[in-house]
């Protein structure tokens, strides 16, 4: 557990970057710090491993005041993912990953093995091991940055915009991979981002900071979206927050309709509007318009615009499936990807109306602890 106790940072030039911050990052959870540029996220993060010393207040690591620890030794026990990776340009990728174990004096063979293991863990090809950072793409460098932070298996990780320098597709990939990793590792993580979507996706709890380094609200993502504390938070979490909040609501049992399907490679004499095409294992492939078919269905005939939702997924995914299907019938599959039926948008909406929103908490105020940091959520 990491606890900020009335932490203030005033730089020599008078800038107050962090102001009386009280915050607790629970063990085994991801706590996200989010807020507009210059609101003090990086400063807050770097005070934890004492890259920056607080002006007043204290930060406790599992109950120990960090001011009482030796800075260099403490940092070896905290994984730090630096904004834009910050790799050592003169060292190879394996050497970069092995930086902390080397400082800890592990033997060479163990460092090598651990580094190679992590390389694969973060989804990099072992062949990049002997390359130098300048020979890697931005996304690959960020993976190395994450691997380096994980190398000595620290219980605590500080991550400063770890996925910022990559395009949205790779970014999403890195986020998903990291959430999967965290599922196994259960690290105590403080994660900084200025992107509210990333905050909501990654966070077990989210702390919204306003410029001047003050905490505006601390809550779990679903609560933040449904009950922003004030105009600033409401504005910051964005316009379609109502829609996005559905990501955190599991679908109830939706009224599914059975769907007549067509196997890939089959022809049909039906002429009704849209038909769903499935493969041999009954997995949805796309929609076709029979009137346009001139024989058996081929890949090229498929309309792939529709998304597919898992029955165990969120209401947002179910609604999106209905809205995006050209037939307006949302495709629902089971966990193995097999078609189980379709659902229409108004049926999902009815389910949404029946579902409970997170309750407003009586003691809700800026800075109050998250209602239930343990609340599960499925990343969308």
């Amino acid at each position, binding site marked *: 557990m990491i606890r900020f106790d009335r932490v203030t940072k005033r730089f020599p030039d008078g800038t107050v970057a962090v102001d009386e911050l009280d915050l607790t990052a629970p063990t085994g959870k991801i706590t996200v710090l989010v807020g507009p540029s210059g609101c003090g996220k990086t400063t807050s993060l770097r005070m934890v491993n004492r890259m920056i010393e607080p002006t007043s207040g204290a930060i406790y690591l599992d109950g120990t005041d960090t001011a009482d620890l030796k800075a260099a030794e403490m940092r*070896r026990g905290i994984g*730090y993912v630096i904004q834009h990776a910050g790799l*050592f340009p003169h060292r190879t990728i394996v050497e970069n990953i092995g930086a902390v174990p080397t*400082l800890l004096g592990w033997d060479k063979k163990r460092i090598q093995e651990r580094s190679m293991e992590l390389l694969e863990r973060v989804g990099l090809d072992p062949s990049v091991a*002997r390359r130098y950072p300048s020979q890697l793409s931005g996304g690959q460098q960020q993976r190395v940055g994450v691997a380096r932070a994980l190398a000595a298996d620290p219980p605590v990780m500080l991550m400063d915009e770890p996925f910022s320098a990559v395009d949205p597709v790779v970014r999403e990939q890195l986020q998903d991979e990291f959430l999967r990793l965290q599922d196994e590792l259960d690290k105590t993580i403080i994660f900084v981002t200025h992107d509210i979507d990333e905050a909501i996706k990654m966070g077990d709890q989210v702390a919204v900071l306003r410029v001047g380094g003050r905490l505006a609200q601390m809550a779990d993502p679903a609560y933040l979206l449904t009950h922003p504390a004030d105009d600033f938070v409401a504005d910051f979490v964005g316009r379609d927050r109502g829609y996005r909040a559905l990501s955190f609501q599991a679908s109830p049992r939706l009224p599914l309709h059975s769907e007549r399907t067509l196997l890939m490679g089959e022809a049909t004499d039906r002429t009704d509007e849209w038909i769903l095409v499935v493969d041999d294992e009954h997995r949805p492939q796309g929609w076709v318009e029979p009137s346009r078919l001139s024989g058996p269905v081929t890949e090229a005939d498929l309309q792939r615009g529709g998304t597919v939702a898992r029955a165990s997924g969120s209401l947002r995914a179910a609604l999106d499936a209905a809205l995006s299907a050209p037939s307006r019938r949302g495709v629902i599959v089971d966990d193995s990807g097999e078609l189980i039926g379709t659902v229409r948008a108004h049926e999902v909406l009815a389910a949404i109306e029946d579902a409970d929103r997170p309750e407003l908490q009586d003691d809700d105020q800026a800075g109050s602890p998250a209602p239930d940091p343990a609340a599960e959520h499925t990343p969308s």
Partner: protein
Amino acid sequence: MIQSIIEWLLSPESWTGSSGIATRLWEHLLYSAIVVVLACVIAIPLGLYIGHAGRANWAVTLANSARAVPTLGLLFAMTLVVGPMISSELAFVIPSIAVLVLLAIPPVLSGAYAGVASVDPAARDAARGVGMRPLQVLTRVEVPCALPLLLSGIRAATLQVIATATIAAYVGLGGLGRFLIDGLASGDYVRTAGGALLVAALALTVDGVLALVERYAVSPGLTGKDVGDTAVVASTT
């Protein structure tokens, strides 16, 4: 003329003896090495400190402006002033070495300073972030990253010292400078030209050796050179 220079350079008699080419070459090399090592011992720690701390930058400026002082004038002045204070042979050795060291300091100092100052702040930050102590940050990250500029400073200094060490002959020290001076004095221009050629050849050879050292000492990650297997890797991924 050219013919006779080549003859002089190739004849075994001119290479042997206490004033032969071999001896002079060795003297020249020895003085130059002593000078460069001394300059490095003084200028590298200073340059690293200035670059690392970002303080006392005036020292670099000062050293660079000292380059304007005419070396030969300084050498005579030093020999006149310091010479009488020291007895024995050292009366000539110390002033000329001191002058050459002064000459070599600015490029080494600037190289070390610029090298450390140019280290990517993100790398330095990462070094602290993974838990290196200040000295480890210096030796494991700042110095290796500063190496390209530091080594080119040393190379520049070495070239300059080898070229200028000829003047040491004026105050009675040996080295290849003797051929130039004696040649001029006795009107033996073959020797003068041959000596000059030898100095140039020595400078180029030493520079070539240093270039090789640089090639092996500097991490390929800094020079952007391919690591060899990259092309293969790229095509298989």
